[in-house]
């Protein structure tokens, strides 16, 4: 029995050791790894259902909605649920296609996530979120689905907020659009997943993009407890969504409407016009009152997922790329509207303000004659009249003289480049910094730009200089192109005399956006301060409390004295009555509202001229700056100026009810009731 007892003792030690092993391992699993396994348990046990927050509205300066929400019944499909079915949900989709009267194939395409080889109308959102199939369901259709849930597993009909645009196409590019957040974006926003989900829409362009975070609000989260089979057992955690803030903009929807109409008519009046833009600024504050671009489109096409055809249409060359806002992305030679900068440059270079300048019909710049408009000489002019009559030769001459002072073809070590630098002082050549994404910077073609450009292009040019253009059939043209390539190859880095002359009258390589021109004029006619224009004015909580107002930063100062500024402004004040725009404004009651401005007609090689009119009113105390640009619109006085006139007529109520009876922009934020309604003034 002794042996047995010994072995029983050994057994006891073994049992104790095994029990200790279990206890140690339990400690490891439950205490050391406990928090980690707790998280994994929550993940397996619950499904997070995102409750989207109501997106804030975008309002105009009086509180009228530019973009609002309408509630719509949305039918969505839980894709992962369908795929788990035996027939991958085909029977459900075919039943759904009866109710929604859409082909099954279309529905299948709609729920397939986008990817390589899968084009629109694919699903751009997260594959784990319900896919909205139809946002225009009527109540009867929704009830058909809701009442027969057992026949439509994975299909739901819910009330969602859908963006609606009371102004139709007005300002579509400026407002921007929404589309479901992509999975890649979701991945990038680690930790923000709860606030950013596949059912959420993200602002993609315009102010919807810039103010996306504020407008979006915070999505709510419902953590639903499920069992192993995915059956919901109950709600474990619920976080209510926080509605997004409303964005009050400085846009005046009435002026915006007038502007859209005027631009449309201008486009129609010019047979070859392929695009246009109109900008209305409040020059005192630098806020944007209206911003439109033609051709436009109806932003409602984005609601509920855009079709591939429509998407292609919006981006195609043929339709004129209506997605692109020409007000901030259209880069065109500004023509004579640029002369305000050139006059300032002359003054900086030392030309007297009250001097007399000869305006011959033609001026020799180097070995080439540069002509006035139609080659007509205008005698001896003051700078005032040079602007009013839009003399070119005065500017050719001064620009050429400054070019020579900098050393001409063989520049000095430090060049002054008065004309280019003054233009920069007016805010040209860099983005205005407006609260819109993807703004273009325009171009100031100075000596440095020439060099950089040459470095980029000399390779191709030099090759073409030797091979020529055999593919061009027209022999004369091929020869011309070859000569040009040779010239660009050998001396493309040199700023030529003609370049400087062209620059002074806003022709050649200089490019500006309509918005840049508008803010330069706004600075010129008010206080000389160059501002970064803003569309957003204030963010207002749904309960009416102002969260923050959007300031308009001053980013520079015009390089002129107050006296010079007033001199130029006075000159421009005469253009509409006695100058190049007199025809366009004939019959306009200048005694009531005096309009100042400058026409511009920029030549574009191989195309019709770009028509410009940059203007302000009233001339005494300017409250509005209006810039109209029509690409291939012809002369400034023919197309752009009449459009600007129509805008002023709308604002001040000439021959029609006034958009702003007081003749000045709204200066106070709209007031809201605690439940978010705008108090009518």
């Amino acid at each position, binding site marked *: *029995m*002794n*042996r*047995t*007892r010994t*072995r*029983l*003792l050994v*057994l*006891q030690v*073994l*049992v*104790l050791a*095994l*029990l200790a*092993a*279990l*206890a140690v*391992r*339990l*400690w490891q*699993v*439950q*205490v050391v*790894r*406990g*928090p*980690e*396994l*707790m998280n*994994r*348990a*929550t993940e*397996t*046990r*619950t499904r997070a259902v995102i409750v989207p927050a109501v997106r804030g509205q975008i309002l105009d300066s009086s509180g009228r909605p530019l973009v609002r929400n309408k509630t719509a019944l949305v039918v969505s499909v839980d894709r992962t649920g369908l795929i788990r079915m035996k027939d991958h949900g085909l029977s459900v989709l075919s039943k759904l296609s009866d109710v929604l009267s859409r082909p099954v194939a279309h529905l299948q395409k709609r729920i397939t996530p986008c990817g390589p080889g899968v084009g629109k109308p694919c699903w751009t959102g997260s594959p784990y979120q319900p896919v909205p199939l139809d946002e225009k369901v009527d109540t009867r259709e929704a009830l058909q689905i809701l009442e027969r849930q057992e026949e439509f597993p994975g299909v739901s009909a819910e009330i969602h907020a859908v963006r609606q645009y009371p102004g139709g196409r007005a300002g579509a590019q400026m407002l921007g659009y929404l589309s479901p957040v992509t999975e890649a974006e979701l991945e990038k926003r680690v930790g923000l997943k709860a606030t950013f989900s596949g059912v959420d829409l993200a602002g993609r362009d315009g102010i919807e993009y810039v103010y996306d975070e504020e407008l979006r609000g915070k999505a709510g989260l419902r953590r639903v*407890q*499920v*069992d*192993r089979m995915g059956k919901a*057992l109950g709600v*474990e955690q619920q976080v209510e969504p926080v509605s997004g803030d409303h964005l009050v903009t400085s846009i005046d929807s009435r002026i915006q409407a007038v502007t859209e109409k005027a631009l449309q008519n201008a486009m129609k009046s010019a047979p070859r016009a392929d695009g246009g833009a109109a900008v209305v600024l409040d020059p005192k504050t630098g806020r944007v009152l209206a911003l439109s671009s033609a051709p436009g489109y109806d932003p409602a096409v984005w609601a509920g997922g855009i079709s591939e055809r429509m998407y292609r249409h919006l981006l195609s060359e043929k339709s004129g790329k209506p997605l692109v806002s020409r007000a901030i992305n259209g880069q065109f030679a500004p023509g004579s509207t640029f002369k305000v900068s050139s006059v300032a440059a002359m003054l900086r270079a030392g030309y007297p303000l009250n001097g007399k300048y000869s305006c011959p019909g033609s001026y020799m710049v180097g070995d080439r004659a540069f002509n006035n408009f139609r080659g007509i000489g205008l005698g001896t002019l003051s700078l005032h009249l040079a602007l009013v009559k839009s003399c070119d030769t005065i500017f050719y001459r001064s620009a050429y003289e400054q070019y020579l002072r900098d050393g001409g073809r063989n520049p000095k070590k430090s060049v002054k480049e008065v004309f280019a630098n003054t233009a920069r002082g007016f805010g040209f050549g860099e983005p205005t910094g407006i609260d819109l994404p993807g703004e273009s910077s325009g171009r100031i073609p100075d000596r440095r730009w020439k060099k950089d450009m040459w470095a980029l292009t000399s390779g191709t040019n030099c090759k073409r200089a030797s091979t020529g253009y055999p593919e061009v059939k027209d022999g004369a043209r091929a020869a011309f192109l070859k000569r040009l390539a040779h010239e660009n190859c050998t001396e493309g880095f040199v700023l030529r005399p003609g370049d400087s002359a062209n620059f002074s009258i806003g022709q050649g390589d200089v490019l500006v956006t309509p918005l840049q021109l508008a803010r330069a004029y706004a600075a010129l006619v008010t206080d000389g301060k160059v501002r970064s224009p803003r569309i957003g004015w204030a963010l207002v909580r749904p309960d009416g409390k102002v969260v923050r107002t959007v300031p308009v930063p001053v980013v520079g100062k015009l390089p002129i004295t107050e006296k010079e500024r007033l001199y130029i402004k006075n000159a421009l004040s005469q253009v509409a009555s006695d100058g190049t725009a007199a025809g366009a404004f004939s019959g306009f009651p200048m005694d009531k509202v005096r309009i100042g401005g400058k026409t511009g007609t920029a030549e574009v090689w191989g195309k019709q001229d770009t028509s410009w009119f940059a203007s302000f009113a009233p001339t005494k105390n300017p409250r509005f700056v209006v810039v109209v640009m029509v690409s291939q619109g012809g002369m400034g006085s023919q197309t752009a100026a009449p459009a600007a006139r129509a805008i002023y007529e709308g604002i001040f109520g000439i021959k029609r009810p006034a958009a702003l009876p007081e003749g000045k922009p709204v200066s106070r934020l709209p007031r809201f009731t605690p439940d978010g309604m705008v108090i009518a003034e």
Partner: protein
Amino acid sequence: MTGGALAGRRRSYAQRAFGAESALWRLDGVLLVAVIALSVIGTLLVWSSTRTWAPGSTGLLKKHLLNEGIGVFLCAAVAMMDHRAVRAYAPLVFLVSLIGLGLVLTPLGATINGSHSWILLGGGFAVQPSEFAKVGLVLITAMLLAQPVEGTDRPRGFDVMLALVAAGMSLALVMMQPDLGTALVLAAISASALVISGVRKRLIALLTLIGAAGVFSVFYFEMLEPYQLARFTAFLDPNVDPRGVGYNSTQSLIAIGSGQLFGKGLLGGGQTTGRFVPEQHTDFIFTVAGEEFGFLGAVTVVLLLGVVLLRGLKIARQCEDRFGTLVAGTIVCWFAFQTFVNVGMTIGIMPITGLPLPFVSYGGTATFANLIAVGLLQAIRVRRQSFE
């Protein structure tokens, strides 16, 4: 009164049961309390893990209580017997258990939850003869090995052979079901009986070698079903296939781990409510303990089982006859093996084998077998002296 006269000659049943010299006072109280505590915990866990089967139901609670009741009755009945008398019935018990195992393989046998180990009795009741086979094997091996060679404390070689044959027979029948878990328990029972009975170390080494060769050939000749093999390897790395064979390991680890130190409270376990761990009222009931009672509760369950094992060992040591010692020691090894493998598989240190946790898991036959074994331990304790 005639009654008084009778009482004079024989003590009344009440006196025999509760009197000063009654066996009741010689019962192992600690063992009793530990088993009761485990049964109560098990009942609560069975309730918690099965009440979600249908809304508003109590799940298998009532049925489990019925099983416990029957088990307690069996336990008491066995405890009242003289274990030396049980020795005489050992061959009969073993034979009945073999017949039971055999019946499972006939058309009478039924498959429940993938294992063909049941005989249906009708009315929703079924027995699992392999559980009784454990008791049968304990008794027969103890009986065979209890008779030492004259003057030594080693069993006779012939008896060892007979014991091995008995073990082989029940093992073979269980493997034909197939029920790998129970087969391993049977192997552990006969191995521990041999060790405790005092066979030579050489023989132990030889048997170990044969066992190892057997295990090797099982793997080598692919005698295991692929799912069994997969379960064996999955525990080493549950992440290999967390939705497939690794699912059980992963989910039970998650459930236990999420209980953390204090647990989520009875009926408060989300993983249990969602039934993420399969078989959570039987083989994986320890996950419910881990989740709802936390580390403290889980360790308590392990400690209670430890108390049962240690008390069993004490009973084995204190018993003065070899049969009692062997029976008690073997029962301890049976419970120890099942406890370690069962708890170990839920916390990822043992492969997944279908074994219930003694006294805690749901299961009628297993409850009966376990409580009969406890009854045997008590019977041995009560009559530990060779001659009263």
